[in-house]
């Protein structure tokens, strides 16, 4: 026991020198970035709004009131009513559930698959690397939204398929980031040490490579979330994502737009509020992503 504690003393920093762990360092940098904190707060509000939607929303998001078509903002309906007289505020609140979950699901898919591909390609190199990366190049050869449109038309238009399509489209970006992180970590001494101690490939990947490649992955995944929310809204706008009457933000804009030219004259609020919700959500994710990048990856600060 005495020996063990003596050893720890040697490793611990000399008294008087203040040391900060990587975590403390990260927290400090992140929270000194005002925009990142604002983004985090707004994003948290959106998440709370999504979780407690049934409690907050003043009306049923699907309840129609045809006499209130395009009624402007009022005390009863702060955001006004849409083309079928539905309460826009309630639909925006419920929309947070759908739009955020859809974005998260797409990014989760892209992150899991992309990470596996990036790890394999970066760690094993050689034919595995060139084969997998060639495959990624084929996906990247398409403008992303065009590819997503084809995938959805193959699978049939629905929100789930839109999430799947956007997820697939973003796999190469994640895979590339992970691969280059893995390559820079692969030759480090501590990986060599693990190998010398007889660790298997999978052990080295899980315990040595992956944790040390996390920083760029987290940053990329966050920034991808912003794009994913936008692209899913865009697919919904093209009629390939969420279908009416689902209160998804992009679909709300589509439904209002498709109701005819009158929406530009009398239903302007039906176009403005769902769009603000999308822009705010995406903007806050972008702020958080930029803050994370500055805090986790000092080289790419800018």
């Amino acid at each position, binding site marked *: 026991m005495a020996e063990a504690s003596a050893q720890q003393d040697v490793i611990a920093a000399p008294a008087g020198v203040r040391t900060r762990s990587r975590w403390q360092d990260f927290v400090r940098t992140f929270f000194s970035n005002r925009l990142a904190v604002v983004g985090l707060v707004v994003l948290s509000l959106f998440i709370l709004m999504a979780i407690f939607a049934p409690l907050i929303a003043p009306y049923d998001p699907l309840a129609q009131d045809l006499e209130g078509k395009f009624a402007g903002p009022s005390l009863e309906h702060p955001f006004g009513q849409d083309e079928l007289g539905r309460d826009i505020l309630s639909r925006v609140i419920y929309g947070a559930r759908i739009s955020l979950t859809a974005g998260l699901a797409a990014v989760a898919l892209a992150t899991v698959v992309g990470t596996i591909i990036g790890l394999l390609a970066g760690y094993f190199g050689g034919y595995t690397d060139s084969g997998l990366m060639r495959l990624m190049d084929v996906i990247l050869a398409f403008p992303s939204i065009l590819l997503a449109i084809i995938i959805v038309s*193959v699978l049939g238009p629905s929100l789930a398929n839109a999430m799947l399509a956007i997820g697939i489209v973003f796999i190469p970006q994640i895979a590339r980031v992970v691969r280059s992180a893995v390559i820079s970590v692969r030759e480090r001494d501590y990986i060599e040490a693990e190998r010398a101690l007889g660790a298997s490939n999978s052990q080295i990947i899980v315990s040595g490579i992956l944790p040390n490649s996390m920083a760029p992955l987290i940053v990329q995944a966050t920034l991808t979330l912003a794009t994913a929310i936008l692209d899913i809204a865009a697919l919904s706008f093209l009629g390939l994502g969420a279908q009416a009457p689902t209160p998804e933000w992009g679909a709300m804009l589509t439904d209002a737009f498709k109701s005819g030219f009158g929406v530009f004259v009398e239903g302007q609020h039906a176009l403005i509020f769902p769009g603000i919700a999308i822009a705010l959500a995406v903007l806050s994710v972008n702020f958080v992503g930029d803050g994370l990048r500055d805090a986790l990856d000092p080289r790419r600060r800018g």
Partner: protein
Amino acid sequence: MLGVSIVVFCMVRAIPGDPAQIMLGQTATEAQVAEVRNRLGLDEPLPVQYLVFLKGAVRGDLGDSIVTGRPVVNELLVRLPATLELTGFAMIIAILVGVPVGVISAVRQYSVLDKVASTTALTGISMPIFWLAMILIVIFGVNLELLPFPGRLGPTTAITSITGLVLVDSLLTLNFAGFWDGLLHLIMPAIALGTIPMAVIMRMTRSSMLEVMGEDYVRTARAKGVAPWRVVFKHSLRNAMLPTVTVIGLSAGLLMGGSIITETIFSWPGVGQIAYESVNRRDYAMIQGVVLYGAALFVFINLAVDVLYAVLDPRVRL
């Protein structure tokens, strides 16, 4: 490109719904459907269908539109000028605004202008393009009645078509009223389409300028008394342009996706609009043609970017 063509072909064939059935409507008999399938070559095995498609594609023949019966290539060519005019104009706006603002932000880092520009750029990236388009229509088209929409020209304006580019044609025929009308129609869709590339270009110009301006040779130039503007434009900007050019090439993809949405909202008769329509009508040949055209254009533009790289940076060899 071959890989892309196989992927496109397989995916388009996997789209559910029988085009022969769609062409004839629900009332068609089995025999009629079978006859049409035979005429379109849809009853052949898939590899045979692919080879037929590939043989045509190499000769510039992408087959006939299943819905209109006209050759896909013709349909694309008719609509290409409208899209080129729109995307070209959007790109010009994006570069003309994005690069200078990016340079100024970098030179005056942390100034008010830099902060405003950076925040605006981030907001620009965060806005859905279809929402931006609708808001532009609401503000400038409906409320202020400043800009006309939809389409490329007002109902009373007529111009002689030579190249298919409204602005060029009207100038060639000295039709200045037509030029003005075309320009006004172009502004809103071009801004809607150009905002995201503009923001992307600005951010990249700023960060690569910042990086370059920290280099030794820039410090040397400053130290030996080179005029500040010369340091910025000659020593820094030329080197900072490399990543910016890459981003401009990649923005072409953004523009293509964006043009589908923008053209749909503004009833702009271009390739993007036909892409949207053909997906909705399950027009295999048309979708195939549009996507292949998009991917080919994308590959070509990024090839052009590589060439430009070699021009800008003598160290890069092709």
